[in-house]
């Protein structure tokens, strides 16, 4: 049995935070375990004790960033009144132009193309995001704010639309601005969930 590295002083979260930063800056391919170790103020064996591969670091770092995101989201949404306002806030919070997290998602997609384990991790993260959207839709339906459409179908639609636009924002497509993206997303909310007859034209 190999000796356990002296990692007692290192917190796993510190490594994950460092990994998210370094991978967002340099990409999975350009990231060395030693870079993450340096950022987290530990040694390479200290990182490898927790994470065997760079792909594992990527998926765990995203899950870790996600935990933070959802904790904040829960607090933010709790302060808002009404499901429509909450859904609007979810649209605002989605990674926008220049956001490090949008790059991490693209890294995840590229790695998922050729690695079933990464693909499975991506599905879990995506499912969690869709569940957050569907949860707000259910609240709105219970309170009578939204039409009784299938919440999971709607979450799939809004999630796909936001991702599609996030790509164009990340590529700095001059034709697509965060304001336009917001308008498109909220038009979908009104069109599919709105109780007030004719939806606004996009």
């Amino acid at each position: 049995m190999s000796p356990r590295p002296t990692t007692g002083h290192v917190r796993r979260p510190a490594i994950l935070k460092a990994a998210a930063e370094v991978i967002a800056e340099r990409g999975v391919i350009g990231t060395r375990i030693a870079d993450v170790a340096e950022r987290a103020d530990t040694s390479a064996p200290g990182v490898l004790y927790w994470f065997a591969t760079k792909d594992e670091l990527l998926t765990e770092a995203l899950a870790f960033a996600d935990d933070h995101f959802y904790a904040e989201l829960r607090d933010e949404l709790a302060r808002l009144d009404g499901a429509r306002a909450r859904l609007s806030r979810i649209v605002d919070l989605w990674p926008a132009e220049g956001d490090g997290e949008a790059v991490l998602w693209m890294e995840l997609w590229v790695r998922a193309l050729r690695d079933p384990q990464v693909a499975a991790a991506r599905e879990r993260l995506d499912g969690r995001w869709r569940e957050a959207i569907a949860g707000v839709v259910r609240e709105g339906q219970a309170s009578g704010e939204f039409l009784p459409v299938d919440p999971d179908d709607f979450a799939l639609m809004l999630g796909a639309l936001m991702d599609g636009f996030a790509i164009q924002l990340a590529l700095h497509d001059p034709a697509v601005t965060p304001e336009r993206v917001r308008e498109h997303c909220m038009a979908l909310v009104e069109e599919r969930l709105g109780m007030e007859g004719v939806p606004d034209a996009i």
Partner: protein
Amino acid sequence: MSAQRTRERILDAAVERIASDGIDAVRIARIAMDARVSTALVHYHFATREALLAEALEHSFETAGAVSEQPGDPATRLRSMVEQCLPLPGEQERDWVLWVELWLRAVRHPELRPTAAKLYARMHDWFREAIEEGDFGPVDAGAIADHTLALIDGFGVRALLGDPAMPLERAREEVWHALAGDLGLHSGALSS
């Protein structure tokens, strides 16, 4: 053999190799072997990985463009365009892999962004013109094209990755349903 045909053979090989290995892992020597030319000749045509990816994508899009137009009524034509943009098995799936590689690479390497912008602009104009020519009444063709492309990417990437929540057939129906709604059509009546 003409220089043009040699170049095309290198590009064909590059497209296949990038799709199977990924742009980061692809080896120039392997592309040369597949294309039955010297490594030096491949290096002569592509100075960097970014140039290789950009050229391979443009090449693959040009080839796709040649067979893309189909006659028919405007709604059928648009439905067929959506179909041609999704990761169907075969060439379209292969092009999609390159497309996803391009997103990441272009975010990291700004010199690739003009290639991405050009391909997006081409797709945008293709949809916008088809909508305008379709005479669907007072619709904002540009906004509908943006909306449709975002949905194609958002649904397409999930279908490409084999997400059980988004099989290809469902991606096709969701995108068409949304587009038909934007155009003021009843999508059910136009399903084939």
